[in-house]
């Protein structure tokens, strides 16, 4: 059995060299059917329409056996791993999920030519690499958050004067998280208008906390994977969330909000400052969907007391180890992440993960007549420089489930910041011990 697998691997590698050496030969995969499990949703469909081109070019066929949200796909993949039904070939992947699927996906370094890998943004390739193995090729769905704000708040002379009198500095688009806090409290007028908002549960709030801890000079875990987020930097970071909640500068329900609630909230025009993802840019400035349209500014994310940081992630495609036609699967993955595919997909507003596509898009936006798009893309290009992914360990997701209820406990006042973080660190410490890190 093992020999057979080794033989198949060898054959696949030989075939992959063939693919890598040039474009797929016409009709190369005649009669081959590739089963794929892909992330579904309006913003992802455009790329899948291109699959027909790959089919026409290579003669292969793609059968999409599952199309779900990332969280649902994640659960399905875990069930597949438990049941041993992992012979489907191509799967959507995400930098936050990738480290969990131990042994499921092949190391693409063995299949994809090094020069192709080098065409991607190095940070994205790093975040796709776990334990030295390149587990996915990044698609044009890179996520880092920047600051969306309502411009009108900065064009009102009375407001500016009142703010200066109260806080002692000029009212301008915030550069630091402390300024965001001051301004959010200043702008808030609950229950009609709020200064800002944040994701309040699940991985979402832990990710926000994580980027804030790093911005304050701390970190989530150390090099041995021991939790260190209960440091002073961590406490300063969590205090920021607590202060805003206590001052009623964020909606009372913010602890139950995740991305959709936040996006709809800013689009309702009742939130002054909103750290959010690139996918919302078009939505926020579209009069059909947003009351804030025409009044939206986009700036690089503010910095903490130590650095400017950006918790980021990106989507990608992986090939399973049990796939029978790895050469065809790799060819499909390379097609979906090619320069043409990324240009097409990022035309819809998502961010690319190839260096050349970034350059083309920024240049096109600067020369175009859509000032908002140019402003947003410039902010994201700047924001991406400070981006980093979550720690590449399988326990990341599980640790967030331990940490988020404790963060909430501090925010709603059940525990002090220090108690909450110590309790969370204790739980994560136990998790890491059980995982055998130390």
């Amino acid at each position, binding site marked *: 059995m093992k020999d057979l697998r080794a033989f198949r691997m060898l054959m696949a590698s030989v075939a992959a060299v063939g693919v890598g050496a040039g474009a797929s030969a016409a009709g190369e995969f005649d009669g081959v059917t590739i089963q794929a499990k892909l992330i579904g949703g309006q913003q992802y469909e455009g790329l899948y329409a291109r699959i027909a081109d790959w089919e026409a070019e290579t003669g292969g066929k793609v059968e999409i056996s599952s199309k779900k949200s990332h969280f649902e796909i994640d659960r399905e993949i875990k069930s597949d791993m438990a049941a041993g039904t992992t012979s489907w070939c191509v799967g959507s992947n995400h930098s936050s999920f990738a480290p969990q699927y131990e042994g499921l996906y092949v190391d693409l370094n063995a299949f994809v030519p090094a020069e192709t890998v080098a065409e991607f943004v190095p940070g994205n390739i790093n975040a796709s690499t776990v334990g030295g193995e390149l587990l996915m090729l990044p698609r044009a769905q890179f996520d880092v958050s920047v600051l969306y704000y309502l411009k009108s708040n900065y064009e009102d002379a009375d407001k500016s004067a009142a703010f200066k009198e109260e806080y002692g500095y000029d009212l301008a688009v915030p550069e630091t998280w402390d300024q965001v806090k001051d301004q959010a409290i200043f702008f808030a007028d609950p229950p009609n208008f709020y200064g800002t908002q944040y994701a309040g549960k699940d991985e979402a709030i832990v990710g926000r906390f994580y980027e804030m801890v790093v911005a304050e000079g701390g970190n989530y875990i150390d090099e041995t994977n021991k939790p260190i987020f209960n440091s002073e930097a961590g406490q300063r970071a969590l205090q920021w969330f607590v202060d805003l909640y206590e001052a009623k500068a964020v909606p009372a*329900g913010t602890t139950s909000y995740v991305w959709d609630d936040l996006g709809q909230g800013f689009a309702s025009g009742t939130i002054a400052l909103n750290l959010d993802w690139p996918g919302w840019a078009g939505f926020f400035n579209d009069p059909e969907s947003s009351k804030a349209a025409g009044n939206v500014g986009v700036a690089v994310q503010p910095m903490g007391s130590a650095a400017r940081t950006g918790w980021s992630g990106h989507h990608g495609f992986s090939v399973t180890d049990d796939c029978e036609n790895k050469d065809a699967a790799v060819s499909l993955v390379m097609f979906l992440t090619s320069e043409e595919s990324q240009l097409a997909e990022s035309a819809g507003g998502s961010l690319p993960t190839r260096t050349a596509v970034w350059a083309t898009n920024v240049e096109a936006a600067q020369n175009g007549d859509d000032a908002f798009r140019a402003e947003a893309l410039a902010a994201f290009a700047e924001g991406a420089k400070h981006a980093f992914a979550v720690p590449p360990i399988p326990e990341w*997701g*599980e640790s967030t*489930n331990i940490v*988020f*209820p404790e963060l909430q*406990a501090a925010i*709603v006042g*059940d525990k002090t910041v220090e108690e909450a973080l110590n309790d969370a660190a204790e739980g994560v410490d136990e998790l890491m011990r*059980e995982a055998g890190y130390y």
Partner: protein
Amino acid sequence: MRRRLPEWFVLLLPAFIVIAAVVLIPLIFSLYSSFTPYKLTRPSTLWRWVGTYNYQKILTDANFWAAFGRTVLFLTIVLNVELLLGLGIALMVNRVTWGQRTLRTILMFPMMFSPILVGFQFKFIFNDNVGLVNNVLQSLGITDMALPWLVDGRLAMFSIVFAEVWMSTSVFAILILAGLFAMPRDPLEAAEVDGCTPWQTFRHITLPFLMPFIYIAMTIRSLDVARAYDIVQIMTGGGPARRTELLWTLMSRTGYVDARMGLANAMGYVSIILSILFTIYFFRKLSAARAEIGLEG
């Protein structure tokens, strides 16, 4: 000569096989896995025996026992409120002489909705910013605040209880109504002749007669409510800060999101105790109630 299997056994064999395949084997398998560190993403962990480690972890886990206690509290409140409302509705419907059938059908409407949809419906109704309840309260001038229905510990529990009661009170109403229909008229007429007040009639004749029906409804609903998951998961996800965490939201997160199936199964076995205790209690009460109205225990 070959010995033949007894005929009754051969006839029952298909049923035995089916029950073993769909109930017994999964049960034994899940019990076994609760003694392993089984993670869905690492199938090899299924074969590592860790003894009672998972159970020890659960017994000393304050969060688990808090969820356990909260589930008991939730069960107690929901069952009692549903009983009172169900009893009231059944008594009233019983008095209706015209259009009773239509009324009984309407009564069953909430039961026809999927619990997930009921969860979404109440999540929207209780939303602090755009929800119906806060908008009504603010428009009527009762409050100018955005009440955090799904965030505040007590309010969130109330909202979930409200949704659960809205959906399932009719189970009680229908079962109690069945009891009222089956009730003999003679004792009621005798009580009337003897000059009993309506309260005396209800307390000493109607209620004892209904008690077996009430305990059957209680047993069915206690098993249902102890499994409460969909509504809670949709409305609050057990949060914030575990304020509405019940056993099943905790177990499903441990098993499917954290992929720690071994630990989740151990939690399942510990929490089965809860269902068993409630069931035994209600069956005892049921026997006592049947004995009281002259049926054998």
